[in-house]
């Protein structure tokens, strides 16, 4: 899929269109940062990079190849990660690795899975009360509240909240596996 189908609306300031683009682009850009994971906070870099993509999108000029905005996002994200490395004087990523990622003409794009949506809803329903409360609190906060405050908001201590979230994550992984859904190993770890 060529995500540049959303480009016109994004350039026009349509945040909903940018949300659709994000839903498809996030994983690819995140994966492009994996080699930095030990030395920079990838979540922080990823969010900042996506914000910058939104800011520069009105000046973006397509080169005629698919997924131009996605390729730009990968470049912004990796440049930001390299800049962070320089600040912290950490061990740099191999230059060849960086160039190989940037040279990709058509990065893979993973689509959200409608079957997974149904399986998640069913497995979520089966979670015990406390783990579900912790899991739902994280989802509802949408990255806007830290775990300390989330824990307080549902009357838990931080460690209890995190233990319940962990339990929810593992139970979801088990439930999804039983339904034949292939999940990342780390989901159930």
């Amino acid at each position, binding site marked *: 899929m060529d995500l540049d189908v959303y480009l016109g609306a994004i350039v026009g300031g349509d945040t909903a269109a*940018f949300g659709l683009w994000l839903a498809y682009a*996030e994983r690819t850009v995140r994966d492009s940062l*994996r080699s930095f994971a030990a030395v920079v906070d990838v*979540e922080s870099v990823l*969010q900042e990079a*996506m914000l910058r993509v939104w800011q520069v999108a009105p000046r973006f000029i397509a080169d005629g190849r698919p997924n131009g905005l996605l390729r730009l996002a990968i470049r912004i994200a990796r440049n930001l990660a390299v800049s962070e490395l320089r600040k912290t004087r950490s061990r740099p990523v191999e230059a060849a690795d960086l160039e190989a990622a940037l040279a990709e003409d058509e990065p893979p794009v993973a689509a959200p899975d409608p079957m997974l949506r149904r399986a998640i809803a069913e497995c979520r329903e089966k979670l015990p009360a406390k783990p579900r409360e912790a899991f739902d609190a994280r989802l509802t906060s949408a*990255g806007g509240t830290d*775990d300390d405050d989330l824990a307080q908001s549902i009357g838990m201590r931080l460690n209890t909240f995190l233990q319940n979230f962990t339990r929810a994550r593992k139970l*979801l992984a088990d439930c999804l596996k039983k339904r034949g859904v292939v999940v990342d190993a780390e989901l159930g770890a």
Partner: protein
Amino acid sequence: MTPEEEDLLIEQVASAWRPGTDDELRYHKAWHDLDAAARVRAFDRARALRPIEAAADPDGLSTTARAVLARIRR
């Protein structure tokens, strides 16, 4: 640090929450307490969680995507 304590830190770092700022990139405070291997595990855990979050969201958005959109709309 015990493995259990480390795992709770990984769980925090794997969330999409990051300290709020409009002009500077801020790390999760727990990230600094993790060694290299644990940071990679936090990356992998976030990578595993986001599709689950997106599948549970009515608009198909992960908490990362929601956090980015919130900053744009701020």
